[in-house]
């Protein structure tokens, strides 16, 4: 395959990888924020995220026949998913993590795995009573049409992309826009408000923050709320991007997003975003070229072997942890005795 056809193809792979990366980034933020305040891998975050996806599915399903602007439906779905996932995350923290605040570190980690399993079955059963397992999003009309395909005539970025043969769907553009807006909002909240300062203080030192008059438990709950709300958003975005979710589909994106958080430096918000984007692109490249499947399979471009994609994410994780455990943007910590 010559360069003239390969180059735009690879650009296309990178761009769709970035779209995927934005979804991962938002999920990774949920992990990184919780890790920041509690130093706990919230294994249940993948189910918090699936809850958001399921709530989004239900909203779109209920509103399917209703005459309403598609974007308004999306907004309702996003808000509902944020509320549901955020409240669920607070509930998890209250019931499963808070009583174990001072236990050895293995203990809340095992609890988190347990909560994750319980939620998987609860979601499966709730949907199962209505005879559903795989939930296929019923998107409003216009969401799946090409945003700026090779055929359509449009200006600016779209024209440029169309010119080199890259087609994005409207929903993929929505994914990126929603992700950007949530990132901006989170950035404002954490860096420019009083609450954000409190979150940062608790993340740095819970005990001293308490001495300074900060309600540490309240802030931890708030962090779980924000992390959960981000999980809800990412769930809906995941549903938009892939079209289908089920109770068990949180595992893969969850593990990849966690890798993204570690890659960027766990606890670091810009790091999580960077990690998500990098992993999204890497994953798409691995899937498309099938490097890990044996020979570099450029000839069969487009045949994605998803199981090797997963291995790719794990290998990236192993390499980072061996060589740069603090991640790309993380602070290095000297271990105190």
């Amino acid at each position, binding site marked *: 395959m010559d360069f003239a056809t390969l180059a735009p193809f690879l650009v296309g792979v990178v761009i769709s990888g970035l779209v995927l990366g934005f979804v991962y980034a938002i999920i990774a933020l949920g992990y990184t924020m919780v890790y920041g305040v509690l130093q706990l891998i919230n294994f249940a975050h993948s189910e918090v995220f699936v809850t958001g996806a399921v709530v989004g599915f239900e909203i779109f399903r209920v509103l399917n026949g209703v005459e309403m602007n598609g974007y308004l439906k999306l907004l309702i779905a996003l808000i509902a998913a944020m509320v549901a996932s955020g409240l669920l995350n607070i509930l998890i923290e209250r019931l499963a993590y808070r009583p174990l605040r001072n236990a050895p570190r*293995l203990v809340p*980690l095992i609890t988190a795995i347990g909560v994750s399993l319980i939620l998987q079955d609860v979601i499966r059963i709730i949907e*199962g009573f209505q005879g559903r397992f795989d939930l296929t999003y019923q998107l409003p009309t216009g969401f799946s049409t090409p945003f700026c395909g090779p055929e359509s005539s449009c200006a600016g970025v779209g024209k440029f992309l169309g010119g080199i043969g890259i087609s994005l769907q409207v929903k993929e553009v929505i994914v990126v826009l929603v992700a950007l807006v949530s990132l901006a909002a989170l950035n404002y909240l954490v860096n420019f408000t009083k609450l954000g300062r409190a979150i940062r203080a608790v993340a740095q030192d819970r005990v001293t923050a308490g001495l300074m008059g900060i309600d540490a438990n309240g802030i931890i709950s708030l962090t779980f709320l924000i992390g959960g709300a981000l999980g809800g958003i990412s769930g809906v975005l995941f549903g938009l991007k892939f079209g289908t979710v089920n109770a068990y589909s949180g595992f893969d994106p969850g593990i990849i997003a966690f890798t993204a958080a570690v890659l960027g430096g766990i606890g670091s918000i810009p790091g999580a975003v960077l990690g998500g984007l990098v992993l999204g692109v890497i994953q798409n490249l691995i899937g498309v070229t099938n490097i890990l499947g044996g020979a570099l399979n450029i000839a069969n471009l487009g045949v994605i072997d998803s199981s090797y994609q*997963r*291995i790719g994410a*794990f290998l990236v994780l192993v390499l980072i942890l061996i060589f740069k*455990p603090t991640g790309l943007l*993380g602070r290095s910590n000297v271990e105190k005795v």
Partner: protein
Amino acid sequence: MTAIRPGSQPPVTAPDRSIALIVLAVISSALLLISQESSWLSRLPSALANFLKNPLVASLVLTFFLANLLFAYRWNASLWAKLLVGGLSLFLILPWAGRDNTSVLDLAIQIGIFAALSLGLNIVVGLAGLLDLGYIAFFAVGAYTWGIFGSGQIGKVLTYFKDNSANNGPVVAVGGLVLLIITALSLRAINRVGGKRTPVANWAFLLAALGLVIGVTLLVRGLVMLAAANAAGLTSGVNPNFFWLFLILAIAAAASVGVLIGLPVLKLKGDYLAIITLGLGEVIRVLANNLGTYTNGSQGITPIGSASVPWFNSLAGAIGFSPDQYNLFFLYFVVLIIIAVIVLANMRLDRSKIGRAWIAIREDEIAAQAMGVPLVQTKLIAFATGASFAGIMGVIFAAKQGFISPESFILNQSISVLSMVVLGGLGSIPGVILGAAVVTILNISLLPSLGEATASLNLPPQVNPAQLQRLVFGGILVAMMLFRPEGLLPSVRQRRMMHEDDDPSGNMTPQDSIAGELNPENAAEVYSPGVATRADNERGGGTQ
């Protein structure tokens, strides 16, 4: 803080329950035999027979019977009663009940397999404190070791190489061996330099490790090419008598994989280690799925042979087993022997120098290191020991099922083994066996029979109780961690540790308030072994 006082337990004053134990054992054995023997069942009034035939009731009867073994272990009874009940139950009643209904023997073997797995994971998680979420990968290694050689798969592999490779087997094998030796030596050299790892040393380490893996691959490939000429003789696997050899080989294979996986990741701590082992466990499963030439991919390998021991088979035949059950009957006793050996090994390890080193690492790595415990080496031994138990049981599993596929080695299996260990009590040998039995019975017997019992309710297939494993495992993990972190049958050491801070008068400081944080017993800066948080020390990556 109250100091740990050895021997400060109050004297046991439970009454002698020998008689009760034997009576219970007789009742439950009778119930089990009646419910499993169709000829006896048919003589009962039909209402009673139907009641006993109900899958839920049958499963509860079996559970009740197995609970006897627990009573025999726990109750204060005279030794002869305990030995009588235990011995007769394991060696007479259970095989007898299994004669008519093989699912009983199947369940017993499965309990044995998972008990061995939990004992192995117990060393890694319970003693050494390394949370391994990919433990089932070692089980897979053992299962595939025998699965490939004990079935026609080895013939297929050799035929493939006979047809598809040039005649350079010796060259590849020798090249692989040379590379293996060179890289192994350089790994040793790099490790001996020790001290603080520089980036250069890290890269050199990675390169050497990569070379090691390639060397092993080449060596194996070369040997396979050399052996390709024998493809025709192996179309139905190696001679079944090699089963015994493969029990040993599987131990070696699983332990080597344990070391290979352990080398790069063991310098990580706690949660990082958990997620990496989870990832590597998945990698092994995906490899099993995708290396179709060797593992037959997702279709799995079948039929897998088992050892044939003529005198044992004639014994089984003499006491009324049908020929297709010889294998189960035989494996049941093999499992019993292996479990006995593993338990013995565990008890010795627990009290040995290495066992104490593991516990020291679990409690405080830095302090352990300062006391002269070699961290990486000790952790690797824990990984390899745990892995070897899984490896040997993998062979048994392959031989019992006669079929293995990557589906048997999913993440959920790792987590179910973890929940067995947690349920029984981290670090406690009898506890872990009990945990394995409870979870396996739930999983294989009680939940499916609950599913059959509720079949009349016409629930949608998505909410069949037989599929509630995740809910059950998750519930076990959460509930145990919240309410009884030391497990059902805690080891003495663990029980003292978990309740070290309990005020005898019962007025504990509320732990979830800031006031609790300031209590010096609980604050992060104070180290009380096993109880203090180590939040500040373990943040941000955690290389040593």
